[in-house]
């Protein structure tokens, strides 16, 4: 009896294909099953929220951008990274270990370098430490795709630890907000800069007029001569 040669079926081919692509999915970012990510504010959140979409610009595109260690102001060119400038301040936006290569890193404290970043309400008034939000070592860059601080999942992984029910729009709160009075804030956070100065101008304007007014009024009454038992003898 001739042995019938088995032909690979289409079904088997599909199984192999599924396993192949399925195994790749194991390498994808681990998500919390109950907490969806902001894959697209246009498709998802835009349907439920009225927002300017400010947080949209933070979204990352995995596998399309390199993990960069850049020098400020040198974002392109033939050699954007220079080892000789490694000691200088660098932009490390998408690194798994944002402090990679820093000398004596183990012996430093966060506030040794990030002085300004410690001056915020979360740290000063609620006693949070850096690691409570930024995680344990190695501390990933904010825009590193797998970082809990990545804006696609920050609201679910970080903010909601204290702020129950935090959404992606809520997570767009700027914890390390710049000083609103400074001129560079005009570029970094223009709405805050202009609103701050409008309010300050209003307040100062009121006091410039009414403080001298009140002082003059009080002095006038204080030194008013009494005539016929009245204070305002010259009121006409």
């Amino acid at each position, binding site marked *: 009896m001739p042995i019938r040669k088995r032909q690979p079926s289409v079904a088997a081919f599909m199984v192999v294909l599924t396993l192949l692509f399925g195994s790749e999915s194991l390498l994808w970012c681990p998500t919390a099953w109950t907490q969806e990510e902001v894959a697209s504010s246009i498709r998802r959140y835009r349907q*439920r*929220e*009225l*927002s*300017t*979409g*400010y*947080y949209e610009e933070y979204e990352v595109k995995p596998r399309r951008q390199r993990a960069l260690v850049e020098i400020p102001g040198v974002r392109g060119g033939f050699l954007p990274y220079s080892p000789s400038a490694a000691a200088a301040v660098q932009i490390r936006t998408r690194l798994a270990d944002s402090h990679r290569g820093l000398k004596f890193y183990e012996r430093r404290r966060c506030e040794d370098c990030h002085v300004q970043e410690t*001056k915020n309400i979360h740290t*000063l*008034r609620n006693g949070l430490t850096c690691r409570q939000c930024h995680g344990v070592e190695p501390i990933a860059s904010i825009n590193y795709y797998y970082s809990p601080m990545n804006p696609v999942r920050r609201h679910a992984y970080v903010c909601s630890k204290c*702020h129950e*029910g*935090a*959404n992606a*729009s*809520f*997570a*767009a*709160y*700027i914890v390390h*907000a710049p*000083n*609103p009075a400074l001129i560079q804030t005009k570029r970094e*956070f223009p*709405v*805050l800069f202009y*609103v*701050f100065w409008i*309010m*300050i101008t*209003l*307040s100062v304007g*009121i*006091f410039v007029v*009414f*403080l001298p*007014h*009140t*002082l*003059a*009024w*009080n*002095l*006038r*009454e*204080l030194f*008013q001569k009494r005539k016929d038992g*009245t*204070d*305002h003898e*010259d*009121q*006409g």
Partner: protein
Amino acid sequence: MKTRVKRFGPVDRAFHALLIVTFLTQSATGLSRMFIETSWGKGLAGLFGGYNSALTLHKYVGLVMIIGFLAHVGHLVLRIGRHPARSLSGPDSMLPRFADIREFFQHIGWFFGKSPHPKFDRWGYWEKMDYLGAAFWGMLVMGASGLVLAYPMTSTKFIPGWGLNVALWVHRIEALLAMTHVFIIHFAVAHLRRHNFPMDRTMFEGSTSLESLRHEKAGWVNRLKQEGVLDSLLVSESGLFARVLYYTFGCAAIMCGVYLLVGGLLNSGRITW
């Protein structure tokens, strides 16, 4: 003996008393949180049970203020509905008039002996500014920014999260403006002036002495005489117990305000803004 002219009804006086209590509570709880880095702020927060409890109280009292504001607006609508023409225009209206600008400059001229004292009518320009600035501009700005901050999960469904940063600064600056205005300018005008010292109890008692009005609001007194309604507005002075109560309450409020003002100014360089 009827020596005083009725100026405010019981509802207006109740609103003012409510505003005093809620405004001082909001000032104290808000400043205790703003100054929590200092020992003064910690002590202040301790009165309310600490940093977090102060915020809880701040939110609830803020809601009381907003409800009070809405009730006041409702009360205004009812009153305006009764006399729309007189309420919205003319000398009995709280809305600004061109005469206020003229009286403002004439008053300044009087400060320096350059012009006679203006014959103010029922409302002086400073009273209109206090009322419109505090009850309307202040309540709207503080109430709106406060609600955004008090319910961030809900508000960030309508505004982006960085709107909370903006709302916080608006709330802060407007609060400082309101407190310094009340604790310096309002107190100096209503209490510190020789004319009123130590306290103008008009807003508590509801009436002002006719003698005092003849000097400060001569225009109003003359108009009431011409209209023949002055006698109908004359009332007797309140009893001793009531006056003691008014002075105690008013002076206690002043002391609270001055304490907050001085404490805030002394410690303003010790906090991270």
